[in-house]
């Protein structure tokens, strides 16, 4: 017995620990692992999922289409063989071909090599390698189609037809390309987006009263940023805010001046004054909001006041007696895996799920909650046990459903009076009467 165990042990120990990408597991079973049923299942599901994504890409391989960059960034593909993300960042043109980067990646030599390695290592079957790549002939055909498509787009510039394509296929596909073949750094940012290059800690200091006189000081520090998109951004800001100023204003300054312009035009928002905050080296310039009413008196998160989303001023209350019964249906309703019961707000989540379920079923229309929904057990100044005060609270709740909050007067919260005081009081009243 011992001899056998030792043999088995030594056999396992000889194998080093290896990481299986498919099962995401460290194991020391060596090559045997590929034949385990769990591995086979994981591998087949992984390949099936990737295959479905590939089929989308291959659709575009046959019929290339164009799309706007703003929708392009939603299309990305994670190549499981190369373990890389393939986004659609090819925004050199206003219109870019859908999943062009993905097609490029799938057709590349390195990808093919990696697919073969993957299949060899994880036992996927070497005959299936060609399913996961794009052959060169197909790629060449696709390229030709793309060129003609782009040529047409450039010639006609008819927004109508392109819009149709764009409307049909804008957000549906999970395609992307690896950046192996395309230089991301050179891709320009589309000129309708306002990137804030200068928005880092390295910004030069600015005085709080920002006027055009301080332009010259901050100018040099921001010239390192690529000028192309820069000027466009300034233009964009200028156009959007209607602030007439130098075209060569650095990003930040244009922003600040526009803020200043807004503020000087009079406050547009009730109760909010947008001003410019003090900036010192290494700090970021943020818009400062100051509310006109007094903050400290009403309590906030720092002082431990009740959160505004948990006290409502309209609608029905929660019946506190209803809470314990809600526990049972939850476990029967949910068939999914159990979430950690110790997670933050677990009790709230369970309760709310049941509530929503009931609302959906139409049993209970309960959108808003009264301020009194939190049962008030803490009537420490009352005599009697907690149950009594709870009963009293429930009675009040029923009454409040009919009336307004006037019934609070029924049970005024009284300060604690000791027995002696009470005795003395009664003696006094007796004596007086």
């Amino acid at each position, binding site marked *: 017995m011992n001899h056998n165990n030792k043999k088995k042990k030594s056999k396992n120990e000889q194998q080093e620990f290896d990481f299986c990408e498919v099962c995401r597991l460290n194991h020391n079973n060596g090559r045997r692992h590929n034949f385990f049923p769990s591995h086979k299942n994981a591998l087949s599901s992984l390949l099936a999922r990737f295959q479905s994504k590939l089929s989308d890409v291959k659709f575009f391989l046959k019929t290339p289409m164009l799309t706007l960059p703003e929708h392009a960034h939603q299309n990305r593909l994670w190549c499981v063989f190369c373990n890389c993300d393939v986004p659609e960042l090819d925004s050199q043109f206003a219109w870019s071909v859908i999943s062009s980067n993905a097609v490029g990646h799938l057709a590349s030599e390195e990808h093919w090599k990696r697919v073969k390695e993957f299949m060899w290592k994880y036992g996927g079957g070497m005959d299936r390698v060609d399913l996961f790549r794009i052959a060169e002939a197909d790629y060449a055909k696709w390229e030709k189609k793309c060129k003609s498509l782009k040529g047409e787009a450039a010639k006609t510039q008819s927004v109508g037809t392109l819009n149709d394509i764009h409307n049909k296929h804008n957000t549906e596909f999970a395609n992307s390309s690896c950046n192996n073949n395309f230089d991301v750094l050179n891709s320009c940012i589309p000129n309708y987006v306002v990137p804030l290059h200068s928005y880092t800690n390295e910004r030069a200091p600015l005085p709080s009263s920002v006027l055009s006189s301080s332009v010259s000081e901050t100018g040099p520090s921001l010239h390192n940023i690529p000028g192309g998109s820069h000027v466009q951004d300034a233009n964009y800001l200028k156009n959007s805010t209607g602030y007439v100023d130098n075209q060569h204003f650095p990003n930040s300054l244009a922003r600040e001046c526009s803020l200043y312009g807004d503020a000087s035009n009079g406050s547009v928002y009730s109760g909010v004054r947008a001003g410019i*905050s003090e900036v010192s080296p290494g700090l*970021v310039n943020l818009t400062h*909001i100051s509310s006109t009413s007094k903050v400290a008196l009403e309590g906030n998160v720092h002082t431990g006041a009740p959160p505004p989303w948990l006290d409502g001023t309209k609608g029905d209350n929660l019946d506190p007696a209803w809470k314990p019964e809600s526990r049972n249906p939850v476990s029967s309703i949910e068939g999914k895996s159990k979430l950690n019961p110790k997670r933050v707000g677990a009790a709230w989540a369970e309760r709310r799920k049941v509530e929503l379920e009931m609302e959906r079923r139409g049993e209970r229309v309960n959108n808003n909650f009264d301020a009194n929904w939190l049962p008030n057990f803490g009537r420490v100044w009352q005599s009697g046990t907690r149950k009594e005060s709870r009963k009293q609270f429930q009675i009040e709740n029923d009454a409040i459903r009919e009336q307004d909050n006037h019934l609070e007067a029924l049970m005024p919260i009284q300060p604690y009076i000791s027995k002696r005081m009470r005795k003395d009081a009664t003696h006094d009243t007796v004596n007086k009467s």
Partner: protein
Amino acid sequence: MEYLLPTLRKKQEVDSLIRDTLDKVLVLRFGLSSDAVCLQLDDVLYKSAKDVSKFATVALADAAAEEIQVYLKYFDITYVPSIVFFFNAHHMKMDSGSADHTKWVGTFHKKQDFVDVVEAIYRAAMKGKLIVNCPLPPERIPKFQLLYKDV
């Protein structure tokens, strides 16, 4: 950016969103639609919203709306944009090196930074912790000066 991410202007909308987002982090940005920093942050949020959609919901609250002022007061929001995190109607705090743990002030340098922050919040919340340390290195955390009563 209002047309891309849900923008809330009423207290009741914010309330119901906080209460109804269950087992997912709620990322609530308080900002102004005219501010350039807010716009940049909104851009980051919009682009990352899909990536974190399985464990987080992103929403924008207009700091200029009247009904939202309650929240600005409650969270003591003086700088915009500010992001407040919730999980199962509980307010999640993050220690990012500044004195104020209750919110995230400023924007993110990269989308990945935002995703990292939300992931840290989610992991902590699933373990039952109400406060978490910021996973970003200090140089990527936007710094701001805390003013006390406009001093």
